[in-house]
């Protein structure tokens, strides 16, 4: 037992979640992807055992290894039970027993665990799955999130998440998809989906102001962890993956400075840049460097370069707007979406003035509908009109924006702007 001088022992943050992801991946290789329920039950039992034993005694020196050991033993038990049912001779049973142990132990090697996890990520990102289901399934099986936690993170209800997971599992069962890393063309295509899902996970945490701070932070950290996992695997260490990882690091470095103490939004120009996480910014540069090989310039490269540009400027005034404009031009070529156009116009406003920016926004295809449906368009355009001296139009648009968002923090920010215009 621990004596008075010892600190209470601490588990690494999210250890259970991460171990759950590992165990699910390994056990899926043992029992097959169609047995996901058995796999999850086994993981649950392993945690129960840890909960029971660790609560009353000391933590094992290596909790992670302890958990894996229990899962391994349980796995072998389950297989033995199956073999007993087969009515084999004692001699054959014994032989099978030792070869089973050897085979199972192979799956529990560190390199194989990493491989299994990558397979699981790829399976969750199967192209036939609905994007929403891909995200939910990834959070559940790779990240070890509970249904309730997924619902909180994705701003959904538990029953909706249950439904998504059920749908995804049924699909996996009925299609008997392979628990393998695809090869050739299919590999690159699948990799793109993996990037999209990770990017989505990150943005869900980074942008959704509706979810609570804690779970949003978890989501961003989880996206970074999975992306890192990807880059650490020989097959996943692609330039685009490094670019995506660096983008996440740059963005995450500003996580804490975007929200004030009273839950108000602090805009980029007003953020205290000393509060940015400079360790993460350094990591961002490191991964951005590692991404600059090969001949493919992905959207993640460009978006990361944009984020890096903001991190480079010691204050808002010294932002290199012409470099940013060039980057947005590149991005627009690959990703000609309304949001990219909108962001580009904000850069143009800095370089050529608000009138040029207003014209660009009004030229976005489908802008009439966007202004009525997505709060960000009237919010940005209203702000620009206000700065251009057209206070009436500015107020009208900001009011629309305020009605379109359900986030209190966003409403408050818009309210402040409205007051400044009257």
């Amino acid at each position: 037992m621990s004596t008075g001088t010892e600190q209470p022992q601490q588990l690494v943050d999210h250890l259970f979640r991460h171990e759950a992801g590992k165990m699910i991946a390994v056990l899926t290789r043992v029992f097959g992807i169609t047995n996901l329920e058995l796999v999850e039950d086994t993981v649950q039992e392993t945690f129960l055992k840890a909960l029971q034993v660790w609560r009353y005694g000391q933590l094992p020196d290596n909790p992670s290894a302890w958990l894996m050991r229990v899962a391994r033993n349980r796995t072998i038990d389950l297989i033995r039970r199956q073999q007993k049912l087969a009515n084999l001779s004692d001699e054959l049973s014994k032989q099978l027993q030792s070869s089973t142990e050897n085979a199972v132990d192979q799956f529990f090697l560190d390199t194989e665990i990493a491989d299994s996890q990558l397979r699981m990520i790829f399976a969750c990102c199967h192209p036939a799955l609905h994007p929403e289901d891909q995200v939910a399934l990834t959070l559940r099986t790779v990240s070890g999130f509970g249904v309730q936690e997924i619902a909180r993170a994705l701003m959904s209800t538990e029953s909706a998440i249950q439904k998504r997971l059920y749908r995804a599992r049924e699909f996996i069962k009925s299609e008997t998809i392979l628990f393998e890393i695809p090869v050739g063309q299919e590999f690159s295509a699948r990799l793109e989906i993996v990037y999209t899902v990770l990017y989505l996970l990150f943005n869900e945490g980074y942008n959704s102001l509706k979810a609570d701070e804690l779970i949003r932070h978890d989501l961003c950290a989880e996206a970074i962890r999975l992306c890192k996992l990807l880059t650490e695997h020989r097959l996943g260490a692609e330039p685009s993956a490094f670019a995506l990882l660096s983008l996440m690091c740059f963005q995450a470095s500003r996580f804490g400075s975007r929200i004030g103490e009273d839950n108000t939004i602090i805009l980029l120009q007003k953020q205290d840049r000393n509060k940015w996480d400079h360790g993460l910014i350094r990591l961002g540069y490191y991964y951005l460097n590692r991404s600059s090989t090969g001949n493919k310039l992905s959207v993640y490269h460009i978006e990361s370069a944009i984020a890096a540009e903001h991190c480079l400027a010691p204050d808002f005034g010294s932002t290199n707007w012409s470099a940013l404009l060039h980057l947005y031009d590149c991005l627009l070529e690959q990703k000609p979406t309304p949001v990219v156009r909108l962001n580009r116009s904000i850069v143009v406003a800095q370089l050529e003035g608000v009138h040029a920016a207003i014209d660009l926004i009004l030229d976005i295809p489908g802008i009439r509908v966007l202004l009525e449906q997505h709060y960000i368009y009237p919010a940005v355009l209203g702000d620009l009109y206000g700065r251009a001296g057209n206070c009436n139009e500015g107020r009208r648009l900001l009011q629309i924006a305020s009605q379109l968002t359900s986030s209190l923090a966003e409403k408050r920010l818009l309210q402040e702007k409205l007051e400044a215009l009257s």
Partner: protein
Amino acid sequence: MFIFRGPAYEDLNLTPEESQASMQKWYDWIGELSAKGRYMGGDPLLKQGKMLQGNKPVVTDGPFAEGKELLGGYFIIKAESLEEAAQLAMGFPDFKISGSVEVREIMKIPMPS
């Protein structure tokens, strides 16, 4: 002695994160009791068991009580009085999941010297 009763953990359907949080609370509690030199040891009890009862005892399989009152384990602690022991038991982490603590004094019978 602290005797713990509460729901079986497997019935709670905890997520990995919740399991970890629950365990950490127990750890912190034991750490706190140990730091005060109060914690002497303890054990969890497995759910399965046997029960013998009656004039002509019949052996039945456990668990015995309602799900919410399962005997989960015990601590041996050192305290100056029953009141102090009860105060120490306030740190029990499972009150929120309708667990309970029974505080009892172990009777020491002095041996004649």
